């Protein structure tokens, strides 16, 4: 059978790729489109490293097929900074040292942004529950939570 021809948008750009049915959307993003910002951790939806936005909804890209992206809007970590200007979450992750090895970071950032868009004033508990599906084996989470809380406060102050 011939491969599927998928037309989608990623970070606002029209994108086309070819894939086999069983290829995950993560696999397509990384290995067909060579956008390697989105990471693969577990491949089974447990770690959140592959988090993306699919039609405005936070999902694990390892738990969707590439063919399912047809006609949809995808947002990945590559679309987070505007040129050289980092997103406030990215700045605060540096400031608070909320990363070490960095593999979980793109997924955490995408998930954290989704939270702040939905809830600009989350409690620490809400941040921790929202990010429970983003595993980090380096930081112990505390710095991540502090960076997200600080960003939320900063965005509220400038809103």
């Amino acid at each position: 059978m011939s491969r599927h021809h998928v037309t989608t948008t990623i970070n606002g750009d029209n994108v086309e790729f070819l894939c086999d049915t069983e290829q995950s959307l993560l696999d397509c993003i990384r290995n067909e489109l060579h956008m390697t910002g989105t990471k693969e951790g577990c491949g089974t939806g447990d770690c959140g490293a592959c988090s993306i936005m699919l039609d405005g909804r936070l999902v694990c890209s390892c738990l969707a097929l590439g063919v399912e992206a047809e006609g949809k809007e995808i947002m990945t970590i590559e679309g987070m900074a505007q040129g050289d200007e980092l997103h406030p979450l990215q700045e605060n992750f540096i400031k608070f040292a909320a990363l070490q090895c960095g593999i979980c970071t793109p997924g955490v950032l995408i998930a954290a942004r989704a939270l702040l868009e939905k809830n600009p004033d989350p409690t620490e508990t809400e941040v921790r529950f929202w990010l429970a599906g983003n595993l980090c084996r380096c930081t112990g989470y505390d710095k991540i939570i502090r960076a997200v809380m600080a960003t939320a406060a900063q965005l509220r102050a400038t809103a």
Partner: protein
Amino acid sequence: MDDIRYETPTSVNAAVKLLAGAQGVAKVLNGGTDLLVQMRADVVTPTLLVDIKKIADMKVIKKEKGGWRIGASVSGAEMGEHPELSKMWPGVVEATELIGSTQVQGRATMAGNLCNASPGADSVPAMIAAGALAAIAGPNGKREIPVEQIPVSPGKTSLAKGEFVTSIYLPKRPKKSGDAYLRFIPRTEMDIAVVGCGISLTLDKSKTVIAARVALGAVAPTALLLEDAAQTIIGTKLEDAALDALAAACSAACRPIDDKRGTKEFRIKIAGVLARRVALIARDRALKN
């Protein structure tokens, strides 16, 4: 790996035709949060995937006869964002929202949770307690059955070849009704129930329980609807003695396994503990309705 055919029918009939006519292993692709993991692990090796998400109504939550019809592809996140549904059936919504992470919530569905037929599925005891019905389409037409009749053993359903669940119906309920779901897991998020308990009940003006349904998950090969346990609280005001009887009936009904998440003894004990707590939460919610 052999090529897998992928189809996106736009009508229920077209989906049924594809599923019924399949030569090899045909699977419905809905939220995909279980199926894609099973495919990756080679537990399931389909030759045909029928993605039902482009069928009209699969993504719709609508009022019907005073209750709610929830399309098969409605995600947990979408249910949680629906204020009226969350108000009428908070237990069902909270159970569905316990499935996986925020990311998984973006795709995972109640219909999928039901048809994956895991004994530990969180939404299933809550749906059973709610008296939920599953609408099924198949080669012989449409039918609607209580959700507890869908799973028959771990990973197996009663659905015939060509059949799939098109929606879940949560019925209308009288005033002074409430439902709740709790599960025990070793951490506070992102794990699979060691025991899950769903209870739905209705009170009269004197705060006496006049109707109740009690269901347990993860303590038997399928989720259990416990009529005996419901009888222990009907006619009571959930006094300590009634709650003791409820807990005892729930523990007595368990037929669990030992596994890495918990022993048989632990599950049996916890089933009763959870049932007490769930009944009280459902009661408090009923008093506010």
